């Protein structure tokens, strides 16, 4: 199978040993040899959180690539150990929300059987690396980011020096000029590109992050050679590990170090370290890169004509299919193929949730239509990267049977939301029921298509797992004297034109949020010029007119 990194004996041995190690850690905790304080980071580094009602296990999907066999294994775990479903997150991972501690070693064993794990999906370490969900398929891609995603997965796995960092550390990577991986909100972001000599090099950004002090990442170096990328990251992490703040959990991310020291001064420190260590030890051998690149060779594409007669006929004959094609297809570099987004955002549904039956259906359809590969996106959807246009109608019919063909990718119903107060111990407010409410309000898909691209992102607390700062409309749950209130921002953007949203006005109550969103949308529809998206109109006329529309002109 192409497009997936295939484990060998060594990778499997590592994973088996790691499962055993965690089994013993659980035993030592139960025997009282480890205190809860000591056990906590160990379980977190194995993806195990304690939430409001139960343990949550977050499973790593490195750089967002799953095989159909892995998807079936997840379905089986969901059925056996959860309540028959799972939840895809904004970091391309999958969470089970109803896990028993005693089951965890068995679940980790079941994951290891399909070369999966939950390593470094939490904790103050280098987290699972994320990337562009259309890697290897997007026409604008210069370099395949999965190759480097895998290299970074390996390098960061149980890194002996960087496992007890001041705070979590998230890396995203893309190989395209168009940013589908939300680079600007990551601790470190890499854009792979062809350098002046044609060889692969990287733009390195640092210090992005949301939470209570949101910052967009800043450029650190616009040309780090491929062979130096590990050394460069070692230097970044070493400076952060030594000088990142440890006195205050809210100031411990690297974004605060960048903010307090200044990116220019920090660059000096990092590059001085880099110059010291860039020798042979950390050099990324081109042979290693090529060995890993071979795992991501293009699948055996058919040679197809540019135009698919069957596809065009189906589109003409079936308006519902045509509508789905308008929102849920992505262009493909291979003639006759398209990328497909399966949104996990049915009307009134929970963003990112998927039942075990649906997972199995998706696995079967991936085998039939997309080389056995499924990719969760940071927008909590699933991607079939390579589908023949001839097959799109047949795929759509099958997806529809499983309630997976909602024609709303990138539209107002395609909401990102964190689990919120329904699951999460950190949350101040609910987010899931609110997302469901908004989704119901805009249930009319023709209306959604008329509104066009509009990304709502919602978090139930300041930690911003739902990326509200970079939502076209951002919604943040806050607690005001025990009452759920929601602060609304507009104009945020997570792409290459990244921006933090601006606060619209005073927070609104739970039952006012959907009306407020609708007012914003109506005002946009009145004001927009031809071809303008919601955020384009916000950029042109500013936040103030929107504010006046929502709060009245006295506001």
């Amino acid at each position: 199978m192409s497009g997936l990194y295939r484990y060998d004996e060594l990778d499997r041995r590592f994973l088996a040993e790691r499962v055993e190690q965690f089994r013993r850690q659980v035993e030592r905790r139960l025997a009282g040899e480890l205190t809860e304080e000591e056990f906590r980071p160990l379980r977190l580094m194995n993806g195990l959180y304690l939430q409001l009602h139960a343990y949550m296990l977050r499973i790593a999907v490195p750089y967002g690539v799953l095989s159909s066999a892995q998807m079936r294994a997840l379905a089986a775990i969901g059925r056996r150990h959860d309540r028959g479903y799972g939840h895809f997150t904004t970091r391309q991972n999958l969470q089970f929300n109803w896990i028993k501690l005693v089951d965890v070693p068995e679940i980790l064993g079941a994951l290891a059987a399909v070369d999966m794990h939950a390593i470094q999906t939490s904790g103050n370490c280098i987290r699972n690396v994320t990337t562009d969900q259309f890697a290897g398929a997007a026409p604008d891609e210069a370099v395949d980011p999965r190759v480097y995603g895998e290299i970074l997965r390996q390098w960061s796995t149980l890194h002996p020096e960087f496992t007890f960092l001041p705070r979590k550390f998230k890396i995203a990577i893309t190989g395209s000029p168009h940013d589908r991986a939300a680079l600007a909100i990551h601790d470190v972001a890499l854009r792979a590109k062809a350098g002046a000599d044609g060889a692969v090099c990287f733009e390195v950004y640092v210090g992005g992050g949301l939470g209570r002090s949101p910052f967009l990442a800043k450029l650190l170096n616009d040309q780090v050679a491929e062979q130096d990328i590990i050394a460069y990251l070692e230097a970044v992490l070493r400076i952060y590990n030594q000088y990142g703040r440890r006195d205050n959990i809210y100031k411990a991310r690297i974004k605060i170090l960048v903010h307090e020291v200044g990116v220019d001064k920090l660059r000096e420190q990092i590059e001085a370290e880099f110059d010291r260590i860039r020798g042979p030890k950390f050099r990324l051998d081109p042979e290693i890169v090529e060995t890993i690149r071979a795992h991501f060779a293009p699948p055996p594409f058919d040679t197809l004509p540019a135009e698919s007669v069957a596809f065009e006929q189906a589109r003409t004959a079936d308006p519902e299919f045509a509508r789905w094609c308008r929102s849920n297809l992505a262009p493909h570099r291979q003639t006759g193929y398209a990328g497909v987004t399966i949104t996990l955002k049915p009307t009134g549904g929970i963003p990112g949730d998927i039942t075990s039956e649906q997972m199995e259906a998706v696995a079967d359809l991936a085998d039939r239509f997309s080389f056995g590969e499924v990719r969760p996106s940071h927008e909590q959807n699933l991607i079939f990267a390579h589908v023949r246009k001839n097959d799109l109608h047949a795929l759509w019919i099958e997806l529809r049977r499983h309630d997976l063909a909602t024609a709303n990718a990138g539209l107002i119903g395609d909401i990102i939301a964190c689990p919120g107060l329904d699951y999460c111990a950190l949350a101040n407010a609910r987010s899931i029921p609110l997302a469901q409410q908004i989704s119901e309000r805009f249930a009319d898909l023709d209306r959604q298509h008329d509104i066009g691209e509009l990304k709502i992102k919602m978090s139930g607390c300041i930690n911003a797992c739902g990326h509200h700062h970079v939502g076209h409309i951002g919604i943040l749950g806050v607690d005001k004297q025990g009452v759920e209130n929601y602060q609304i921002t507009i104009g945020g953007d997570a792409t290459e034109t990244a921006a933090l949203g601006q606060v619209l006005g005073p927070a609104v109550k739970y039952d006012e949020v959907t009306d407020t969103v609708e007012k914003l949308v109506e005002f946009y529809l009145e004001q927009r010029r031809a071809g303008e998206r919601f955020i384009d109109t916000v950029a042109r006329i500013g936040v103030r007119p929107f504010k006046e529309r929502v709060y009245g002109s006295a506001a």
Partner: protein
Amino acid sequence: MAVLLKNGQPIPDSWIALDDTEAAVPDGPVIISLERWTRDRAALAGRNAPLGIRLKSHQLAPAIAADLGRFELVMLEFPKFRDGRHFSTARELRERYRYTGEIRATGHVIPDQYLFMTRVGFSSVEVPDGANLESWRLALNEVSVAYQAGVLDDSPLAGLRRKVAL
């Protein structure tokens, strides 16, 4: 009393850790704080017995780089096991400053960190009295594959990976 481990096994400790309030410096190997070294370096430099230095978690490798030739032991203190700064200190001592003496961990450390410690250059660790020494011994062999270069590693087995168990 703490137990001193090397390669997973208890070994005798010939060093005396000196409190800053103890005025007299005994004969034989002693470990002093960075503060005391800064204050009394003229007197201490004249001793014939081995000298060790102890760094708190915010005192990093560059703070002693110029004097490393004076120290036969560097003791790195973990106030909390989650404070991972000294993983970088040990590595810098070995790789940047080419320090070849003993690097010892002390304070709040847990067996689950032991393999990481050896891989960044620690040579010994003081574990609290009453610790389960079997857990410490096992910790060095629980995971035998590593995916990146440690201080003692040269070339990988395949890809980025290498075998690390003893």
